[in-house]
Every structure is written in C-alpha cells, then in structure tokens.
C-alpha cells in the first residue's frame, strides 16, 4: 500500500509557531502603531457631525476630480446616512484607505526595486503570484495568529491582499517607459536615481495610478472578507445579514460598499485623467 502524505499543514503550523515566537515583540509594536493610526483616522471621521464630513469629503473630491463626482460623493454619503450605516461606512473607508496606504508604502518601493533589478523581479514575481492566487480567506488565519482578532489583523490581511497590483504595475509602468527616454536621460549625464525621479516615475505615473486604483478596489473588497476577523464596518453588516439570511440588511451593506467603490474608483481614474489632460 502506498502511503504518500505531504504534511504541509503541520509544517506550516510548526513554522508559524517558531516565527511568531521570535517576531512577536516586533509584531506587537507594529500592531500598536497600526492601531493608533486606525483609531486616529476613525476619530477624525466619526467625531465631527456627519454633515461636516460630507462637506469636507465633497470638497476634497471636487478639488481632485471635479464637480460631478463631488455631487455624486455627497449624495452617496447621504444615502449611507439615510440607510443608517454611517458609522460602518466610515469604518470601511478607514480600513480600505489605511490598507491602501500601507500597501502602497511597501508596494511602490518594491515595484521600483523590481523595475531596476531583474533579479529582484524574478524573486518577487512568484511571491506576488502566490499572494494573489491564494484564496483571500487564507490570509485571515496568519493575520489573526500574529495580531489577534480585530482591525489591525484586518488591516494586515488587506495589505497583503492589495499590495501585489501596486508592486506589479509600478514595476510594469517603469519598465514600459520607452528606451529612448531613458537613453536621452542617460545621454545628458543622469545617474540612475535622477533618471528614475525625473523621467521614469513621471512617465510611469498613469500605470502606477492604475495600480493604485486596483489596490484601493482590492482593499475595499478585502474589508468585507476581513469582517470575519473583526474588521467591522460595512463588511460586518453583510456578514451578519448572511448569518441571519436577512436579504434586506445584506442589500443595505452591499449598497454602501458599492457607493464607496464607485466614489474611490472614479476618484483615482479622474486624477489620472486630469494629469494627462494638463499636457495636451
């Protein structure tokens, strides 16, 4: 009889135990740092009256993407207020945006490194593939193991899930900058750093923006899933409605997420467009 068993689960558990033992002090400080950010961000959005937040968001969107989207954003937020999921919506915004911020914080530099160094790209690519193809639920387990239930774990899971497009598209964008541009920069005596800052990054910006857009969308998607480990927010509304088979409540939570998704998506899209328009 063949008894061929790969005890992958045991291996991974063993590794995690060791890793968590050694790095838990680091994780604890990271965890408290992230927690402070989230708390602070949440307070900023939840402490003032709702109307003030709506107006401020409306103005920011107006400034970044024009009047039409600003009107839509205010109307959308008004709807979430009317649906009585204001607090949950704000929590979701906080999670999605901090998830995006942290993803970009790591993702863009990693993308830049990958674009400058073929070796780095070869190492990163399978890792990114792995991160993207792994079912998103799987992230939740190590996140909980390292950080415990709660928003920090949710944020970490979101970051891991949302980072790959930022890395990939930053790398791609820089590599796609035409050889002539890079050659011209070099011909005038630019070093690698000058070429990167002055030529490659600005020319890669539309692609990088597409990466940021995807990153935001994936963060938003992950906040729903991360509600299982205590992310709260609109995801929790959806999760609870699922557990109680409450179609009505599910629709409310879903609607909130869709509104946020549309606002954030159009916002990044319009920022990119505006940049390109200014050159024509």
């Amino acid at each position, binding site marked *: 009889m063949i008894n061929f068993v790969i005890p992958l689960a045991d291996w991974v558990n063993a590794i995690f135990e060791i890793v968590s033992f050694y790095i838990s002090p680091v994780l604890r400080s990271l965890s408290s740092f992230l927690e402070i950010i989230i708390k602070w961000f949440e307070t900023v959005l939840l402490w003032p009256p709702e109307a003030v937040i709506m107006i401020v968001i409306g103005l920011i969107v107006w400034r970044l993407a024009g009047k039409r989207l600003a009107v839509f954003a205010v109307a959308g937020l008004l709807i979430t207020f009317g649906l009585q999921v204001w607090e949950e919506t704000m929590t979701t915004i906080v999670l999605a945006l901090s998830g995006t911020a942290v993803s970009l914080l790591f993702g863009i530099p990693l993308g830049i490194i990958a674009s400058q160094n073929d070796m780095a790209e070869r190492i990163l690519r399978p890792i990114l593939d792995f991160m993207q193809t792994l079912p998103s639920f799987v992230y939740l387990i190590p996140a909980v193991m390292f950080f415990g239930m709660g928003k920090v774990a949710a944020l970490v899971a979101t970051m891991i899930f949302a980072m790959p497009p930022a890395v990939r598209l930053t790398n791609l964008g820089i590599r796609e900058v035409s050889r*002539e*541009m890079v*050659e*011209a*920069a*070099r*011909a*005038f*005596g*630019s*070093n690698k750093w*000058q070429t990167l800052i*002055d*030529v490659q990054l*600005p*020319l890669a*910006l539309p692609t990088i923006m597409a990466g940021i857009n995807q990153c935001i969308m994936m963060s938003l998607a992950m906040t729903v899933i991360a509600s299982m480990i205590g992310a709260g927010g609109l995801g929790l509304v959806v999760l609870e409605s699922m557990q109680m088979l409450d179609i009505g409540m599910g629709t409310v939570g879903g609607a909130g997420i869709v509104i946020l998704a549309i606002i954030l998506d159009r916002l990044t899209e319009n920022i990119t467009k505006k940049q390109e328009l200014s*050159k*024509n």
Partner: protein
Amino acid sequence: MDLIEVKNLFKIFGKHQKKALELIKKGYTKKQIMEETGQTIAVNNVSFKVKAGESFVVMGLSGSGKSTLIRCLNRLIEPSSGTIIVDGKDVTSMDQSELQDLRRKKISMVFQSFAVFPHKTVLENAGYGLKIRGLTQDERDKKACEALELVGLKGWEDSYPSQLSGGMQQRVGLARALATEPEILLMDEAFSALDPLIRKEMQNELLELQNKMNRTIVFITHDLDEALKLGDRIALMKDGAIVQIGTPEEILMSPATNYVEKFVEDVDRSRVLTAEMVMKKPTAVVIFPKDGPRVALHSMRENGISSVFVVDKERHLQGLVMAEDALKAVENNQKDLETILQSDIPSVLPDTPLKDIFTFLSGKSVPLAVINEEKKLLGVIVRGSVMAKLAEGGTVND
C-alpha cells in the same frame, strides 16, 4: 587639433565577445563569426579623427553600425575593444562619475526619435541637461531660453511637446543639446524622421547655427544628400566598418570602392559642384575708368571672346562690355566705356550650387561672373566649362 580620436573600435553584441574578438584577429569575416559564435559585430575596427569645429558625417545604410558607433562615443553603448579619446581623455577607461561628467558638460546628443520628455514643458526639456548638472532654476531657465531662441522656439516655452509638430519637437531636442554648451554634438539621424521640406529647413538652420557656434558635430545619416550638405568630411560605413573617409568632393569624385561608387551613383552632380569648382580665371578684364573702348576691343580680339568684364582698380566688378557696342563706340570716337557699360549683369557667389547656375546660363550668351561678398571678381563661368566638369564626373562613375 583632433577633438575626437577613435582607434580600432569594436562593438560586438552577444555574450561571447572575447571569442568573437579572437576570431576577428584571426581574420574571420563577420558572417563566419556569426555562424561560429552567434555574435553580431556591429562596429568592426573603426578608426577616425574629428577635428575641433568640424562637421563629421557618418553615413551608411541601416544596419551598418553607425548608430552603435555614435553611441560608443559617449558610451551609451559599451565598446567591446578599442580606444576613444575625447579632448585628450580616454573615454573607454572612464568610471561612471567621470562619464556622467563628460555627458553633462562635453558631449550632448540629438536623437532620431526626438526623445523629448512628454511630461516636461519645452523650457524644462531644454533645461534638462542643466538640471542634471545641478544648476539653479534661474540659471537653467536663462540658458534654456537662449537655446530655445537660437532654434527659433521663442514663445513656446510653456507648451508641452505633444502640442508641437515633429520639426518643432526636434528643435526642442536640439535646444536641449545646445543649452549645455557642449563642445561636441552627437546627432543620430536627427532629421531622418522629418518630412523632406522640414528636413531641408532644419539642415539649413543647422548650417547657420554651426557658422555661429562652431561646435564639433558628429552627424549620423543614411541620406547621402544630407551627408554631402552637412559634412566637412564624410565617413562611409558598411557592415560595421568604414570604407572611405573624405570630403564630400573626394567621396563623389573618387569613390574608394565599388560600394561607395554604387552609393554615390545616384547623386546629381550638379547639386554637389559649386560655382567655384567650375569657374575659370577671367582671361581678360578691362579697368574702369582707365581703359577705353579701344582697349576693350583689343582685349576681346586677343582672347577670342565676344564680351569682357569691367572691373575697377580693386577688381570690384563694374559690368560687362559687348564687342559690338565697343566697336560702335570706337567708330563714334568715344573715349570712355561709360555709355556702353552694362552694369546690370548676372553674378553668383562661389558656393552657389551648380543647379542654381543653370538658370543663369540657359539662353544667354554672356558669361556668368563669380564674385565674392565684396563684389570682387573671382572667376567666369561659361557654358562650355560647366558641361566639361559634369562630363568629367560622369567618366568616373562609368
């Protein structure tokens, strides 16, 4: 003084450059090496010198290695072997920072694809090299403005390249290269992407600029007309090697190989030859106002001509006297040439191309005067001598 000196330069593309170099030394041909090692020899044992202030044109068909060669000069492409001396310094042994310094101060480049930065304004583009050199905003804007004015783009400073036509974009590229006030300008097929009319215009403007600035230019082209027009000397490249170096006239009149001969076969000689090359020394002139109609008539009889040029004591051209008019004046016992002097006669400058001379010669029996800018008479062109020169060129080609 030689500003650029290239000695035994090789560039081989591929992973086994050393092996290919050994085979070259053993006398293998480019094709054999390709078969044996899979290595492409882009530049094959090229040596040349460029004098300061010279316009040196490297000409060849696509794939002849000329673009690779020009990129070796500032090491955008690493040469495989050989030396490149620029202004007494060996470029091939420079480290990265010396090389950057060379590119920032001494050598700048203009590209076939323009390669202007689409995300920068015209002014920022022109000031790019200065920015990299570390100049302050004010300094570089000032110099960039000057360079833009030089190429005729004043008033376009705040535009983006996408708002400009191809010709104007290349002017931006030229301004960017000139703004750093380099000693050497590398121009890689700089005008090839432009349509013929704009290309001509740019060529003329480059010549004008060159008159003012007197930089050393290495110009790459596949267009013989362009090479002849712009080059003080031309190097013809084939399969990575230089087959002939010479002045435009040398290349045309005595092609070194069949290849060069084929190349120059189609060139219309009348565009290359200039008035200076076909003119004769004036066999006879009369001095005004010293000489009278009798002297003029005598001089014409003596030389067997039907008209004679009249100059003053400093040989400034005054006009022409025809034999029949002189004869009448003698019969009427006139003392001076004043009444019969035709002062409204055609004349050309020594560098006028032959094709422009034909229009003067056709249908007129009077000879054409060649004068310099001070109107001094330098020579005479008669129809016969032009034909002779054209025919002489023809025999070289056959």
